[in-house]
């Protein structure tokens, strides 16, 4: 079974299970999410079988919208890698046999293996950028080389470079679009379509902010597993894309109003940062110890970003921005959100606002921007808020390197520390 077939089978299984045997402790909105994924993957599988080419995006989920507005089908490589689950080993082997470093971030290794496995639709274009981390940049660079297709690298502006940075991004977007239009048959940029996507994403951001407010409630109405769910931008063409988050918010609001928490007794609450050994479900382990995880921060690239600010382009730029300009302004501002300093600030703010008792910082091996700041974030949290941080290392997809006894005993010890500091009985 290739990757896409496995995906279809997985979501069919999940949809069936929820329909036949719903779990009342889980979000009802999950069904909708799986249905969207199922429909999306089925379409992809069909396109794969028909030989339809896709644009490969090495990072930056917002670029799903830009490329789709140009008429591309898109695959966002890092999040696609996240979905291989227990099948990761095969893709590791492919990448490593090719000579790729086995000590870098495992997401990149899997996505390199996945692209080379021939199980994804072939690319017609590769887009990569300097907005997150170098493994994503070089991963994209490699894929472009491997498939010998046109590619574009987007340079992010220097921090605090203001209007000049905005212009730098905008000019590159225009360059990118005209390059795509000249190199890839059938590509034509439709700015109005980009505007439509932006309305959808803005609405989601708005809902996201409301959900964030609900997370402040004690007990937390949401489970750790659900806290990390976000509708992927890859689903932006699904008709129910906007519905999902509404449903999600409504369920949370209902629970919050009734004072129902995801845990029978919430003894402490923590934030989970960067990445996690998703194959091992550490969130359920924490919950079994009475620790809620209301918030998950996916690090530099996303997660609980800044607060949602409605477009204030008129104030800032003196006029209403076009959709492309708007995207550029977001990118230029986003450049400031990727520094370790702003990351530390963001985590502090979240901890303060959500009344968190601690942070679990997953030192994802190979993720330099993140592991290099773990200790600093921990020191800042201790100094500013007096809360502890667990720095725990591992891999997010390479389950062969995971040792459950070790990992859980560290989590357990941390829970003890949290409770001891709060003076709460276990």
């Amino acid at each position, binding site marked *: 079974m290739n990757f896409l077939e496995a995906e279809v089978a997985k979501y069919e299984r999940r949809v069936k299970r929820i329909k036949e045997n719903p779990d009342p402790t889980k979000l009802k909105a999950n069904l909708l999410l799986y249905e969207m994924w199922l429909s999306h993957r089925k379409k992809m599988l069909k396109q794969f079988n028909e030989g339809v080419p896709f644009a490969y995006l090495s990072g930056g989920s917002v670029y799903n919208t830009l490329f789709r507005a140009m008429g591309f089908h898109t695959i966002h490589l890092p999040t696609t890698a996240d979905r291989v689950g227990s099948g990761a080993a095969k893709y590791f082997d492919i990448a490593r046999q090719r*000579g*790729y470093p086995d*000590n870098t971030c495992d997401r990149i290794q899997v996505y390199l293996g996945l692209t080379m496995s021939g199980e994804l639709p072939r690319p017609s274009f590769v887009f990569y950028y300097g907005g997150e981390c170098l493994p994503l940049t070089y991963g994209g660079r490699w894929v472009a080389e491997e498939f010998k297709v046109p590619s574009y*690298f987007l*340079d992010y502006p220097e921090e605090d470079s203001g209007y000049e940075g905005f212009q730098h991004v905008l000019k590159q977007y225009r360059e990118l679009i005209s390059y795509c239009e000249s190199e890839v048959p059938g590509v034509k940029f439709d700015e109005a379509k980009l505007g439509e996507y932006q309305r959808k994403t803005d609405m989601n951001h708005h809902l996201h902010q409301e959900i964030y407010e609900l997370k402040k409630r004690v007990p937390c109405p949401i489970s750790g597993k659900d806290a990390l769910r976000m509708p992927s931008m890859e689903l932006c063409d699904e008709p129910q894309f906007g519905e999902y988050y509404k449903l999600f918010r409504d369920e949370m609001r209902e629970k919050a109003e009734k004072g129902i928490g995801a845990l029978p007794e919430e003894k402490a609450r923590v934030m989970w940062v960067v990445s996690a050994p998703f194959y091992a479900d550490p969130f359920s382990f924490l919950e079994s110890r009475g620790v809620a995880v209301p918030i998950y921060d996916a690090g530099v690239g996303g997660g609980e970003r800044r607060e949602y600010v409605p477009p204030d382009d008129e104030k800032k730029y003196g006029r209403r921005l076009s959709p492309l300009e708007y995207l550029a302004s977001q990118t230029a501002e986003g450049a400031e959100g990727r520094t370790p300093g702003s990351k530390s600030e963001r985590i502090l703010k979240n901890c303060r606002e959500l009344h968190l008792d601690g942070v679990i910082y997953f030192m994802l091996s190979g993720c330099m921007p993140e592991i290099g700041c773990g200790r*600093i974030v921990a020191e800042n949290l201790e100094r500013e808020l007096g809360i502890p941080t667990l720095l725990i290392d591992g891999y997010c997809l390479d389950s062969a390197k995971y040792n459950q006894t070790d990992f859980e005993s560290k989590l357990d010890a941390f829970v003890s520390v949290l409770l001891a500091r709060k003076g709460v009985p276990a």
Partner: protein
Amino acid sequence: MVQNTVTAEKRLKKLVEAGQEANRFNWAKEWKAQGKKVIGLVDTYIPEEIIYAAGALPWHIFGTWRQNVPLASVYRPPNTCRYCAHVLESFMSGQLDFLDGAVGSDWDDDRRVLWFQWTHLKMMSFRYQLHVPLKDSDLARIQFTANVTRLKKGLEKFCGVEITDQSLADAIGVYNKMRSLLTRVYEMRKRDVPPLTGAETLGLTTAAMVMPKDEYIKELEALLPYLETRKPVITSPHPRLLVSADRLDNPAYIALIEDAGALVAMDDMDTGSRYFWNEVPVNGDPIEALSRRYLSKLACPRMTFWDRQVSQVKEWVKEWKIDGIVNFTMSYSYPRFFGMPYFRDQMETAGIPFLTIQREYYLGSVGQLRTRVEAFAETLAEDF
């Protein structure tokens, strides 16, 4: 002009050993004693002519060459860039307290983090991070020029001087002079028996990175005529190797290769050829000229134009009659790791033997290194 062989050898030795851990601080401290500023650098993408023009000493930071980094390990787990770890160790142990400031760049994620660690630990009064685009295009060049202009302003403010076009032009002149002198040394490496071993040459280029440029130029210029006729101790002139690496600043690594029965006749390193290759054009706007040289000319795996590095190396292989390439990746320094398969494939296609070795920053695991290099030399030997 140096006449006497003994004196010349002495002077040469002093120059070649300037980058050694025991010596590299001397010039910087002398400079400080004159009441002038020293600015540290951690990569070769900073147009250091600007620092020179501001009257400060641009001083390249090499980390401690000792193995253990207990202080830096607090902030840097073992699976992070080892060069940065050894640099941070030098900072935390107080070895670099004399630095007034440092200009870093986002050479890779780890150097960016290093800058953040300086900030967190409140090291030095001036810390600057320059963004260097990973690509070369008209737009990237415009952006880089703007970034370099901001760096110039920052330095003017910190040093309290105005950096005029004239002072920049003078600085470029000095640097170009250094570049042309080192180019002449590298030309001599084309000979069947070069006047310098590979290890000595690395000593010479790293000296340029820590010494005040005027003094360095004076020394090297005086020694050049001697070098023309020098008879070096070279154990084995064959096979001729090119070493490709990034911040490899310890000549002991090259000595190890040469002890294993090979000659390092050329390099592709930040601390070697890439430091001085390509002069800065002297006409036109100096900042623009500098930006062009630093962004477009350095063919290093950090950039997304990997093909330029490859074609540059291929050219060198031909001109320096190279038999094989030793590619040193350093633990947890990613740009080279990611570029390696491409580099290797291109070299293999071109029929150039290629050996890749993972190393630490300090000289460790000598036995293993030696076996790899010796075996490589054996595969390259004609008569075996």
